[in-house]
């Protein structure tokens, strides 16, 4: 009885706030809708089509025949060519993104700690690869890695080695090419995180008796942890999906997922298998992102 009375009293006292509070709920969605429509139409729908395609049949060299089969997924996880490619791609992506994050962190730290004019130089350098197309960069590597290339010439003329060497078409060349592509993204992500840190904290840490190594471990590393994770996942996504660079710089035996998707799609005209391989790639990348996200959320509290 008292409850009911209290309820009606409440309803009488504040009939309006209830009404107005419903309206703002719509505003975020309205504001979000243009971006949401773009994401759903241009990314969601094609992914759905691709998912559907991966279950279609592949008969008589036709691109695809509508139907439903798990055949292609079974092939992917049993045929050593495909399992090998998945493994190779993941390995290469992991190693190159780790290297990217390490090098990017070092450069971002330099740009952050050095005076402003150095900072501009570093930012300019990091922008360069973004201004050149991937194909042009590959041509650049073709002049750098071969036996009569720049690298070999530099090593021989500096006396470090006696015979010319070629690093062209090696896994190392593919690795370097990947790092070069992903480095700018890691650099800018890490620099933006570092810019949010009060540099005086390094001084106060030293002031309280911490050596530079201890300051790095106690202060800088925990504060840049989320940035490192974001930079890593960004580099990893790029490295997993990229097709041209590892194909052009690596050995013929370096079969990445990107290469095989291309081959199945254009060479073997097997669209369902190409789609299934793409789905594996998408899901794999999504899993890595979820993993890095979950590592971050625990640390998010003090960033507010």
């Amino acid at each position: 009885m008292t409850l009911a009375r209290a309820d009606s009293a409440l309803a009488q006292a504040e009939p309006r706030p209830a009404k107005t509070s419903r309206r703002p709920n719509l505003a975020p969605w309205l504001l979000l809708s243009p971006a949401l429509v773009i994401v759903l139409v241009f990314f969601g729908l094609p992914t759905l089509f691709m998912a559907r395609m991966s279950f279609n049949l592949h008969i008589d060299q036709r691109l695809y025949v509508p139907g439903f089969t798990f055949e292609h997924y079974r092939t992917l996880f049993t045929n050593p060519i495909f399992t090998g490619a998945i493994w190779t791609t993941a390995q290469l992506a992991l190693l190159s993104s780790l290297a990217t994050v390490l090098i990017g962190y070092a450069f971002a730290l330099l740009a952050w700690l050095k005076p402003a004019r150095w900072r501009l130089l570093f930012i300019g350098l990091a922008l360069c690869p973004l201004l050149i197309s991937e194909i042009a960069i590959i041509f650049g590597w073709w002049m750098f890695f071969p036996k009569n290339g720049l690298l070999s010439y530099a090593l021989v003329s500096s006396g470090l080695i006696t015979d010319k060497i070629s690093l062209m078409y090696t896994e190392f060349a593919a690795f370097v090419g990947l790092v070069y592509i992903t480095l700018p993204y890691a650099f800018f992500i890490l620099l933006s995180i570092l810019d949010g840190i009060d540099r005086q904290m390094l001084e106060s840490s030293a002031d309280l008796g911490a050596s530079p190594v201890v300051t790095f471990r106690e202060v800088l590393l925990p504060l840049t942890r989320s940035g490192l994770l974001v930079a890593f996942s960004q580099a990893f996504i790029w490295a997993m999906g990229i097709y041209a660079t590892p194909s052009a710089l690596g050995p013929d035996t370096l079969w990445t997922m990107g290469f095989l998707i291309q081959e199945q799609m254009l060479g073997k005209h097997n669209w369902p298998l190409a789609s299934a391989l793409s789905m594996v790639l998408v899901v794999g990348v999504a899993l890595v992102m979820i993993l890095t996200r979950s590592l971050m959320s625990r640390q998010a509290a003090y960033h507010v």
Partner: protein
Amino acid sequence: MAGRLAHVADCFEGDPKVSAAAAGAALEVERVRRAYGAVVAVDDVSLTVGRGEFVTLLGPSGSGKTTTLRLVGGFEGVQAGAIRINGARVDGEPPYRRDTATIFQSGALFPHKTVAENVAYGLRMRKAPKPEIAERVARALDIVRLQGFEDRFPSQLSGGQKQRVALARSLVVRPAVLLFDEPLSALDLSLRLQLRAEIKRLHDELGFSAIYVTHDQGEAMAMSSRVAVMNRGRIEQIDKPERVFHEPANEFVYTFIGESCRMDVRLENGRTLDPQGRPVELRLAAPLPDGAWRLYVRPSRLKIAGDGEPAPNRLRGTIHFVEFLGDVFRTHVKAGALELFADHPGRLQQGPGDVVDLVWANEDMKAFQ
């Protein structure tokens, strides 16, 4: 209160390092110099901070006070001269090997560590045993009145609380010298006054040695054992606050500390001319030799007199306008090209346009040639 004082005191007295070296100075800065390219930030500065002394570096921005502090803390290197802490030379040492602790303007707390972890940081770096760390952290938080805030993060604290944590974090390591780098200038006025009184109280209770950098003369006067007034990288005067105020060593110190009215005059054959060469009616009790002079009087010492009143020094002018400043009225008077203002508690009979005489006593005037 007595119990509180006692336990606060052993925070410092229990330290053998402090009592053993009690004879010498905590900090000696000897003829240090620091230049950035062609700009000399600190030029031949010497300074001694005795044990338990609170020395303030006061000066306008760009006067080299913060650079001096950073040289002591080791964040900048000296190019000439020496710095000694407890008699040992430290100017080649990095900050983490110097027995100083700085309270920064921004606080510079570690945002990913709790209040207790922040305060414990310096003790952990000194490899103090865990039970001792816990005890000293609790005591330091007690001293700055932040008990119960141990598990908060800096982002959950107000500006004043952050500076208290910064203070506790520096106090807890019992440094030979505490370095304050304008710690209150980011806070609003009432909080600033409150924390100022609190730092003063802590100094009285704990007796630490400190250098305090500020551009606020109120802070400098209220807290310091001695004030060093800095200008263009040099120390103009270093003395007790009262002496700096009442017996300034030179024109810069006089004009920087407290408000003053300035009269640029030229004395010629018994006449007084303003900067534009027009005569003004100035009568001085003790005549000065001919030449160009800068005469200064504090506005609180200038009085507005009726015509007949006897006064040793007298300047005739016209009231320009009157301001109400709360505690006092400020009457702006023009005499030729000279502009002065006099502060007085009550409203005047005269108003703008009226001719009045400004009078002052001999000892209230400073004359510089």
